[in-house]
């Protein structure tokens, strides 16, 4: 069973996209833990740890990804979750993508991504349990 944490860090108050992803992943047979809006990186990493997820899907629309995302990745890795796949969605300008990948994000999915592509990405890239 694939367990995914869908997380909304920072101050933006729109989680429509995150909810669409959560439903699509559920419909693909995954267990999705959704933590709601306004999460700190610490809360997200702690939830990922307690829930023992294989995937953390972060959605950021506010433009705060350059500060928030590397913090989340570092905290998750510090907790010993080396293999957890970290995905990023939301509004991430093209020029920021390389920095996000450098920070340890496995893939960035922008607006308009077909949810089937995300599901396929997850099932292909998860390390065998």
């Amino acid at each position: 069973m694939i367990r995914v944490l869908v997380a909304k860090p920072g101050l933006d108050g729109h989680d429509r996209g995150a909810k669409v992803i959560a439903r699509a992943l559920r419909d693909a047979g995954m267990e999705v833990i959704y933590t709601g809006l306004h999460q700190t990186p610490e809360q997200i990493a702690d939830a990922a740890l307690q829930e023992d997820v294989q995937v953390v899907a972060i959605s950021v629309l506010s433009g705060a990804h350059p500060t928030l995302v590397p913090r989340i990745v570092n905290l998750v890795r510090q907790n010993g979750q080396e293999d957890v796949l970290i995905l990023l969605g939301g509004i991430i300008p093209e020029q920021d993508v390389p920095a996000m990948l450098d920070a340890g994000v496995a893939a960035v999915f922008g607006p308009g991504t077909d949810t089937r592509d995300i599901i396929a990405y997850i099932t292909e890239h998860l390390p065998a349990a």
Partner: protein
Amino acid sequence: MSELGGRVLRQERAGVARALTVVERGGSPGRELLRELFPHTGHAHVVGVTGAPGVGKSTLVDGIALEARRRGRTVGIIAVDPSSPFTGGAILGDRIRMQDAVMDAGVFMRSLASRGQTGGLSRSCAASLEVLDAAGFDLILVETVGAGQSEIEIMALGHTTVVVMAPGLGDDIQAIKAGILEIADVFVVNKADREGADRTVREIRSMLHLAALAPPWPPPIIRTVAQTRQGVADLLDSLDRHQIFLQESGTLAGRRLHRTAHLLRQAVTDLADRRLQAAMEGGDWELVLRDILAGRRDPEDVAGTILSGETPGSPGRKEP
């Protein structure tokens, strides 16, 4: 003791998290781990919190956890949500309302999906409880939507059952009819600042009067406003009193026996399910069905064969 078992006993969060995954997955690694941990259980006060959707269970659980932390206790939380019967997937959203408590290192919360197995839920829930108990949490809260048989079974796993209601939902009495009255040790009327709270309290009280003349533990009715934490300290006091009652009245031993009986029943049902599944997947299944249809074999006999673990195909099958 395995490495993982040791990490649970040392209360390493990552170890507890992984152990929960292992026991939830079941199979022999899960059983092995539970066997190791079992001698270290029995310390926690396990409290089930149930009630219809929207009554405020998650907020209340968050409040109880915070209050228990204030009193120096550690808290484990298991929040159960249904899996989709169609895809097996689930959205587990109980964390949304449990943010206050879950950031504290003395609180560990895990979301559990029902995974659509009949009865399997209460088994994986019982297993999760044992992991958290072995990890030394003082209070373990189990939250479920009180909608059906499986939830009532889960409540049977705990020591104290809290049934949460709220005014104005209109389904309070329905919930009582569904058998929840019998399992409640403590009633909570949440959202008690709203209109109709008095009526809800009165309804519960009159139902209780109908049920028993002088129960050894008359379930208290606590009014709370979970959002402002009002009444939550009273609720925790009631939970403590119930725990003392269980110990002093000797009911606790009875409950443990009851819980063991429940787990054994569950294990038998699970084994039977697996054997039936294996038989159905066997190549002779359709022939077996045709034999029964033609009156050549008796369903009861075939059932006996399946339960004994033999393949129901060839033995005893006579060619027409």
